[in-house]
């Protein structure tokens, strides 16, 4: 019988590991829900990139310069 290669062993490490998980299933469920909330809900609906929404591409430095200089009134 031929010896198993590295990639085969690596695949089975993860495959068997995930299949035999007990506590891990609950943890992955929590991680999954958390990632969906963070990346799908929070990032898209609540945390847009402020500068790219207010400045055209390539004009970000002008936008920030204006912001910083206009924050001050002599």
């Amino acid at each position, binding site marked *: 019988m031929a010896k198993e290669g590295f990639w085969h*062993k690596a695949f*089975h*490490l*993860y495959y*068997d*590991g*995930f299949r*035999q998980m*007990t*506590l*891990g299933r*609950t*943890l*992955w469920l*929590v*991680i999954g829900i*958390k*990632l969906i*909330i*963070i990346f799908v809900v*929070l*990032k898209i609906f*609540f*945390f*847009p*990139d*402020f*500068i790219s929404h207010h400045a055209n591409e390539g004009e*970000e*430095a*002008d936008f*920030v*310069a204006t*912001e*910083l*200089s*206009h*924050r*001050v*009134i*002599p």
Partner: protein
Amino acid sequence: MYLLSIDPAAIDWARAQFALTAIYHWLFVPLTLGLGLIMAIMETKYYRTGDVFWRKTAQFWQRLFGINFAMGVATGIILEFEFGTNWSNYSWFVGDIFGAPLAIEGIVAFFMESTFVAVMYFGWEKVSKGFHLASTWLTGIGATISAWWILVANSWMQYPVGCEFNPDTMRNEMTSFLDVALSPYAVDKFCHTVTSAWVIGAVFVVAVSAWYLLKKREAEREMAQKSLRIGAIVGLIASVLAAITGDESAYKVAEVQPMKLAAMEALYNGGPDQSLTAVAWVNPFVQPDYQNEEEAPLRIAIPYGLSFLATRSLHGYVPGVNDILKGYTREDGMVEPSVQEKMERGRSAIETLAAYRQAKAEGADEATLSPLLSTLKEDFPYFGYGYIRDESELVPYIPINFWAFRVMVGLGTLFILFFAFILFLDWKKKDIASMNWLLIAAIILLPCAYICSESGWLVAEFGRQPWTIQDMLPVGASVSNIGSSAVATTFWLFLVLFTVLLAVEISIMLKQIKRGLNK
């Protein structure tokens, strides 16, 4: 001078939201670092002795490590979202200096931790004992390296080095990666933070072990007794190291952030031969009248202690709040200008920057631009002072700094004594398992360890106010021109989300602890 068109409430909400997220994130990180070390020690015992008991013990702590690790994953990402939305001026201004360490952290965390965590959990029957042990150690080391890069980024904000401001791109550009990565401030912060995280891991192991002994759980008795001993050894070494590295951190703070040290000590008027305040009455709810009070009332102090802490000389000069505002001569002979002078130079830097960009946009020649650049370079170290309206804005909220510092040091000292006492009893062959009062004390100390650790961060972050980047950019200029209601909404959203996640974590963790050695 005053900040234009920025709702002050937006600044407060953005700060509150960042603090909430960072505090929540920091509930998981120290236990990951601390438990990472202790579970690796347990497995090393198994590797050396071949005793299956140690394998089961290591696996038990690895399961608890896994719960904490899973709950902490990605909570730090939210901080990066907040940079882009709430702190956009700051994000742009710091440029690649902040981005590079965070990118390295992300790559290290993903590849190193995900690979070795998988081998640690799935590889017990599939890889050799040596390779498995190496993976367990590398899981903890990977997390520690990740922490290094985050702390490098934080340290740069407190002590900006290795960079130069480019007025064309409006960004700080890295001139020396090594100066940023190996900044003495970052080295001190890393050593202090990591050793304090080991303390949390040790307190956690001792507390869980104490619970088994208190509950008279026979199946876990041996595991609890031996874990308690290892936890106490790690805890004693780590808490002593945390005290030593904390002293080094305070020395560095005295050098580069004297106002933070003055706030920590409620030192209104400094001078040579300064004593270190042990306790004093600083009203927690009111900023003291530092301009008129000589010192905080009911002060008990250690003679010459502060001078030694800050300058390594019993007679060294330590500036107080009022000295820093008025200007003073440093211990090394350098004259520190008054804040009024710094504010004037800051305004000059802001005006020169605007003039430079205007001239450049109008196609001015080198002869016109060059003197503007020279002036900007000269005044840029005080750029942030140009946004300061009143010098009182430069004084951080003293009560929080003063009390948080004492809570941290007081609890840190208590941990040293507690771990030393446990090891003394162990050395004397006393039956710790029958000392219920000691076991209850060990459990009570667990929340105290978190309070201690979070207090350290309160000192670090409140103490540097009003700056996001020390002397370069205050919070009012860093924050996005965004409505306070939007930030307030996400603040409450986070509060609910984090509370639910924390309840889930504690619930899963307690369930697993109750199961004990049974999977």
